[in-house]
């Protein structure tokens, strides 16, 4: 391997690592706030990429029907609860958010020339379709079992993952999609050729990481999420409901997932089930940080990206094996260095 190849692989590794880092942050967020190990994180990546690809070919994405369907069920359930509690004043809002908004989005998408829109608009529309799936899944699946043990939540998360993968196959078919590159620019620095796409992915990831940091450090809503993660009882006593925190964390996770999918789709072909492996690599990163530390998770994820890239050069057939074997020394190291604490609930 000469320097040029090493640099190229490094570039590749950092690009993928930046995306894994985003996903690992989402996993840490969802786990600390709701105790759910968010296995379906990868499906949001696939949905983001494939929804964007659909829009670019001018087809209404299947995720839109999923959004309308989940919204209708959630709207119905919440309306029944509001009727039971005689809180009629809540019904217009419930129906507005769960039914009217998705239908309005569908109406909009059906009536504009999707394929000829600019990329930024297509990206925004993709996010508008995919991100609300996060809080809806929390509402329908995890909110009713919010007090369950971590193991039960994990099993349910796995079943959500399997269901969403199946729906992905149904919506998008077995064919993979690859969206056109955001930019064809490339720069030469010395001997190394740096792709514009690489810079864009890294810059977009860093921007999102900084935005998340500011959200958690500077806004009251971000602080409320951190407070819930630190002390659930304390947060409830401040009026920060676990339901609200759960929906908000799932929204952020869905946003990160869909955005990562959009970033990665010009680099690799994404199939309906590609998200799982990508999400798992984010998970390995999150495990390095013990599912609790954001900076360690991000660093671990970048390391996973680099390891994957270099191992694909030396032992292409074993690249996944090498990446996932990494988790063993990490777990050994963590179990030796961290004090074991019993689960509180």
């Amino acid at each position, binding site marked *: 391997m000469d320097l040029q190849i090493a640099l190229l692989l490094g570039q590749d590794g950092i690009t993928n690592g930046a995306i894994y880092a985003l996903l690992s942050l989402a996993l840490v967020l969802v786990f600390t706030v709701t105790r759910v190990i968010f296995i379906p994180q990868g499906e949001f990546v696939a949905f983001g990429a494939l929804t964007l690809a659909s829009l670019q070919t001018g087809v209404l994405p299947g995720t839109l029907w999923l959004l309308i369907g989940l919204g209708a069920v959630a709207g119905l359930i919440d309306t029944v609860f509001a009727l039971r509690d005689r809180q009629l004043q809540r019904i217009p809002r419930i129906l507005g958010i769960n039914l009217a908004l998705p239908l309005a989005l569908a109406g909009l998408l059906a009536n504009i020339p999707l394929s000829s829109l600019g990329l930024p608009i297509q990206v925004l529309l993709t996010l508008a379709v995919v991100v609300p799936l996060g809080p809806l899944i929390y509402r329908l699946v995890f909110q009713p079992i919010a007090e369950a043990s971590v193991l039960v939540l994990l099993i349910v998360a796995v079943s959500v993952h399997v269901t969403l993968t199946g729906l992905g196959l149904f919506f998008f078919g077995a064919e993979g999609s690859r969206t056109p590159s955001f930019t064809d620019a490339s720069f030469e620095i010395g001997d190394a050729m740096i792709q514009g796409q690489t810079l864009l992915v890294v810059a977009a990831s860093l921007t999102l990481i900084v935005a998340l940091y500011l959200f958690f450090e500077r806004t009251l809503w971000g602080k409320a999420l951190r407070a819930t993660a630190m*002390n659930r*009882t304390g*947060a409830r*006593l*401040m009026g*920060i*409901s676990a339901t609200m925190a759960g929906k908000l964390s799932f929204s952020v996770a869905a946003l990160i997932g869909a955005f990562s999918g959009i970033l990665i789709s010009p680099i690799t072909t994404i199939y309906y089930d590609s998200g799982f492996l990508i999400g798992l690599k984010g998970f390995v990163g999150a495990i390095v940080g013990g599912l609790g530390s954001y900076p360690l998770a991000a660093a671990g994820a970048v390391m996973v990206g680099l390891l994957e890239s270099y191992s694909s050069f030396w032992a292409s057939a074993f690249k996944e094996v090498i990446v996932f074997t990494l988790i063993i020394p990490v777990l050994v190291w963590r179990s030796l260095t961290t004090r074991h604490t019993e689960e509180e609930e």
Partner: protein
Amino acid sequence: MSEYSNDTTAEKPLILDVRDLSVSYGKVEALHGLALKIRAGEIVTVIGPNGAGKTTLLSALMGLLPARGEIVYLGQRQGSDRQVEQLVRQGMTLVPEKRELFGEMSVEDNLLLGAFDRYRSGKRDHADTMAEVFDIFPRLRERRRQLAGTLSGGERQMLAMGRALMARPKLLMLDEPSLGLAPLIIREIFRIVGELKKTGVSILLVEQNARAALQIADYGYVLETGEVSLEGPSEALSSDPRVIESYLGLGGRH
């Protein structure tokens, strides 16, 4: 019962009216048929030994535990499905025995989160409220940038109380504010609780430290094995031989 024995308190509106309250953990009943009243601007204390059900009472009132019986708060009968978040919105706050601070956040952020629900419902006066809280607890102003987890026991209690005050509560419930604190700090905390009365907030003070609690309270209840065994105006309770023997003693239990 001596509910109307004191005419001056009878004129003030009721903040909390609890009747026949029972709480069970599985088959074990921790509270049976408890009745309790708090009037506007009063300090009411519930004293009693460990395990009498004092913390259970506060948890049930705050909606953290399911309870049977009738709870009327601010003239509204509370349903059995009442949620902590709704009660917070209606001005009820609890400073729990374990303080439940956000240890990895600064003192300032902890206080800010105390105003979360007011902020959310559009009342953006947290800066003023925080200034008032800093006036009550100057120590917190000095430590505003420090992480809550690094505070001393007394400061943690002050922060927990300050955080509760950030919600501008109508009813402030304090669970054992003296727990684990040095005598000098306890005196300081009780002085502040007594002064809070001037701001018009009603206070339900649960304490093992009966002497200190009865000194600042208007009315007291003695809770033993899940039932109210005695109640009355604080002066009357302080001179009741049964209270003196069990809770005040000669040197006190603290």
